[in-house]
């Protein structure tokens, strides 16, 4: 019966047709939902669930409650947190200062030079962090290549202590973080219209003044993005601080790992892990007020 109506142009026929299209659309959406299933299941079972467990253990072992969080005030934890914040803050400051200089030069270069410099920045991003830390290890240790060269040149008479201290950790970390500092700044600076500084100069501003009062304020979002990103990555860093700190500079990630693998203190370990996640989320929330975070991860 319905067939008689179809295509007849009556209101009922049209409605029928629309519902058919809608039904087909729904069936199609079901198929596209199915495409999400493998990733969804894998992520929920093998990522979200294990991470949620960590947060849960922090308030349930050894006994339910917030007792683990009282550890935050203990001397050993405070010392580790102090070291972590200090090293991360220093790393971030040095990285962002150097990144600003590099990003400024990159955006103010010809497109060919820009491409070469960017390649030099991006390539290390893909090199294993273990390989890079190990190379620094070979360069910086007491009998390392830097000391050997300086001794041979007669610039020093005693080998310098370049690692197994804060200096070594910071060198290694700055090296790792530089690309993450430079790329957001380049993205930001490329959006600044060069005509603006030119206009300021035309109106009588000195180059320094034009930079300070026009370019610098416009690049502020880039600076914030770069700072927050580098600080976040520094907080969660493990390989480089452990290798170049040599147990002398213990940051929170190494402490957590020791709590779990050596002294089997799941309570303290998971509590600090939870605190770490909280700190990262807080910083990301701060960052999202300045820029679109999704853009940073290429999701938009």
């Amino acid at each position, binding site marked *: 019966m319905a067939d008689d109506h179809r295509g007849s142009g009556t209101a009922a026929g049209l409605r029928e047709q629309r519902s058919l299209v809608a039904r087909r659309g729904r069936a199609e959406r079901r198929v596209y939902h199915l495409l*999400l299933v493998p990733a*969804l299941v894998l992520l929920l079972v093998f990522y979200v669930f294990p991470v949620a467990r960590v947060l849960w253990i922090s308030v349930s072992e050894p006994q339910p409650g917030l007792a683990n969080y009282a550890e935050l005030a203990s001397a050993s934890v405070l010392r580790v947190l102090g070291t972590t914040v200090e090293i991360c803050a220093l790393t971030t400051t040095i990285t962002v200062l150097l990144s600003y200089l590099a990003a400024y030069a990159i955006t103010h270069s010809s497109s060919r030079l820009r491409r070469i410099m960017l390649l030099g920045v991006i390539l290390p991003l893909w090199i*294993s962090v273990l390989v890079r830390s190990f190379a620094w290890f070979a360069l910086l240790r007491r009998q390392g290549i830097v000391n050997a060269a300086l001794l041979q040149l007669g610039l020093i008479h005693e080998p310098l202590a370049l690692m197994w201290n804060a200096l070594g950790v910071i060198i290694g970390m700055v090296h790792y973080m530089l690309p993450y500092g430079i790329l957001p700044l380049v993205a930001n600076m490329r959006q600044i219209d060069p005509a603006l500084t030119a206009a300021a100069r035309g109106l009588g501003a000195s180059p320094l003044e034009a930079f300070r009062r026009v370019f610098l304020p416009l690049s502020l979002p880039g600076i914030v993005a770069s700072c927050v990103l580098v600080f976040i990555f520094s907080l969660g860093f493990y390989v480089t601080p452990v290798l170049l700190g040599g147990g002398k500079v213990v940051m929170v990630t190494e402490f957590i790992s020791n709590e779990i693998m050596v002294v089997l203190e799941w309570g303290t370990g998971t509590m600090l892990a939870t605190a770490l996640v909280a700190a990262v989320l807080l910083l990301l929330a701060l960052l999202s007020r300045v820029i679109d975070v999704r853009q940073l991860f290429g999701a938009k």
Partner: protein
Amino acid sequence: MIESAGGATRLSRMGAWLIVCFLLLPITVIVPISLTDRSYLSLPAEGPSLQYFVNFFTSAGWLESFAQSFVIAISAMAIATVAGTLAAIGCWRLGGRVSDAMRFLMLVPMIVPSVVYALGIYRTYAELGLLGTYAGVILAHGVTGIPYVAILVSAALADFDARLDQAARSLGASIAQSLILVLLPILRPAIASGAIFAFIHSWDELLLVLFIGGRAMFTLPRRMWDGIQDTLDPTMAAVAVILLAITCLMLALDLALRRRDI
């Protein structure tokens, strides 16, 4: 460009080149160190020697680690590529809140510090009996590789003309046909890039394996890590160069594939 003559610009450019050199220094220095003819980590004294590469290729332990790393990276790559590509396509077609939530979920592994995930997966695997197994390491590397694939494929889809897919569908192609005959060929370069980065992610990964590797899973990075802690002979530098070489090979492959598809 007129300003490029300015002293400040020239100074910043010099600084930038110094920074680029600083960035490339460790990668360049590791190669001559691996060719040293001395018995400790140093530059060659008399001339280059391949003894530490010979060491590597004649040691059963190192070769086993190489094979393990390779099997794990290939399998993790397969998981990440299939799951990440399908999810990116699904998100693209669905849009709306479902896809926003899914995209966010796929970014989580890039945001949460890996030590936190390492604790969780260690505990979970301890109960499931997956510590020190291929399946365990492959799953952990595969799941954390999904974001790389999803991001690259999503970016390619954002540039893709949706009308091509609609045209195929209105000409009678089924969903599966349009997926296989229209979408996948167009997305191939992005999928290949994603797969390559997922491979490198697993190939270089250390922290997770330290936790979940147990007594049986000694990937190259893990064996190298242990080696640095105890003997520190220049074989480690040879291993570093081998790790580096495979990564560079993969990046070159990515570049070559992209060039061909453009």
